[in-house]
């Protein structure tokens, strides 16, 4: 137990000493990591906002399939049951001819005379879908249009949704590319910092190995250094993130009130925790790669 504590104390002490000796590089690596993570956070927040918008708009825009007067009711029920099982579909409602007429009359009761004139109910029954994920709308609409024996026509308020989905796709692709590039840069900078740390201590390392230090005892401090750089960079990023949310988000929401920016505490907290984890992982991987490559242990 004391031996383990000894080892831990040594490894941590050596790591901190190494970081301090190499402080300019350390600082550079920390800042790079922080920038990478702030960008990651911003991207995730923007992406979340876009997704929220798509979902919010999608909820309002139903798909309406007008049922032919001569369609078999049992067939319609069957289709509705099937639709309820589909991913992305929220709610499936059947609107009878009578309901349709009532709704029509409620909305336009000035023109009640028109119906009187027509004598018969000209409005079709319909199946209305409320969507959870509007992205599946186009395919679903095409499928229902194909059922010509059941449905007269299918109406989808597609344009806005489609545009939003495509914007959100582009933003996701661009964001992902940027994150990949920045992660690579952060990994490279951390690996390089550790490489220099290894070089500065090559004499110590050689002797440690010759007098019987285990591989992990030699590697440990360097891996901890990398993890520490990642952690500090991530903490900076997380602090920046929280400050930004507290200062900026309310203002934006006030100015552009329809933007569903996620301002709730749990979203920011989860994002901060995620960022810190990413920093830790990137730091550890960066230093591990360097240690494997330059330490030959």
């Amino acid at each position, binding site marked *: 137990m004391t031996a383990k504590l*000894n080892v831990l104390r*040594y490894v941590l002490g050596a790591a901190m000493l190494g970081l301090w000796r190499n402080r300019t590089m350390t600082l550079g690596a920390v800042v790079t990591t922080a920038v990478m993570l702030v960008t990651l956070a911003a991207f995730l927040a923007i992406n979340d906002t876009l997704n929220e918008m798509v979902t919010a708009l999608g909820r309002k825009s139903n798909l309406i399939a007008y049922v032919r007067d001569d369609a078999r009711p049992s067939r319609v029920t069957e289709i509705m049951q099937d639709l309820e099982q589909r991913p992305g579909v929220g709610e499936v409602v059947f609107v009878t001819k009578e309901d349709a007429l009532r709704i029509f009359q409620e909305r336009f009761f000035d023109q009640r005379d028109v119906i009187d004139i027509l004598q018969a109910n000209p409005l079709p029954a319909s199946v209305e879908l409320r969507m959870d994920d509007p992205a599946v709308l186009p395919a679903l609409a095409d499928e229902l249009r194909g059922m010509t024996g059941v449905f007269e026509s299918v109406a989808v308020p597609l344009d806005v949704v489609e545009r939003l989905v495509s914007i959100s796709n582009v933003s996701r692709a661009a964001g992902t590319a940027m994150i990949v590039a920045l992660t690579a840069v952060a990994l490279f900078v951390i690996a390089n910092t550790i490489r220099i740390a290894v070089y500065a201590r090559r004499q*110590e390392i*050689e002797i440690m*190995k*010759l*007098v*019987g*230090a285990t*591989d992990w005892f030699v590697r440990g401090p360097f891996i901890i250094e990398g993890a520490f750089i990642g952690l500090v960079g991530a903490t900076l990023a997380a602090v920046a993130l929280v400050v930004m949310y507290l200062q900026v988000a309310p203002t934006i929401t006030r100015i552009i009130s329809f933007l569903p920016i996620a301002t709730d505490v749990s979203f920011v907290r989860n994002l901060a925790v995620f960022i810190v984890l990413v920093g830790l992982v990137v730091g550890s991987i960066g230093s591990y790669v360097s240690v494997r490559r330059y330490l030959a242990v």
Partner: protein
Amino acid sequence: MIVLQNVTKVYPNGTRALDDVSLQIDEREFVFLVGPSGAGKTTLIRLINRDTSPDSGNVFVENTDVTRISRREVPKLRRRVGVIYQDYKLLPGLSVRQNVEFVLKSTGEFNGRTSKWVDEALALVQLSDRADHHPHELSGGEQQRTAIARAIVRRCPILVADEPTGNLDHATSWDTIQLLVRINALGATVLMATHNREIVNTMRRRVIEIANGKVVRDELGGGYDG
């Protein structure tokens, strides 16, 4: 204690440093390894603590074939074999005491009990009063004794010295030999590579002579030239 069986070592550049070498060194022996520069002395020493591996043959240390142990077992071997290097390999940024402690810290074994070992090792090599000096503040002989203290601090049963008197004057060389003899008397098996004709001739210990990578003589109580 140390057994080499038909050991051949060829470096990647083609140099045949050891050629079918066999020898046996028993517990508590004191052995001189002699031969001209380039004979293969350092290579033989490096094989013992798995600093390098032979191309063929076996190297046994305390009945373990060290050519067959895994990477993970190498530290265990090296903790049993203290090595004094020709160039000392002291860390310039550390004091004498810290250099000696470094061995124990490298294996996570430095504590209240083992810190007494450091005092004892420094006392044995008569460097207690120089403990806080750095290597560049020491004479060649003192640096050498620091290296010896470092090699014995863990109380390894095997002590290997690579030309420990190579860079020392006459009197200091004799001090070093006396020290190694004392360590041998305390129970360690000692293998010392050397060029030093006078010391080998005076000590009359076992002499293993190698030339061009081959053992050409193995004589108890021998002199430098047989």
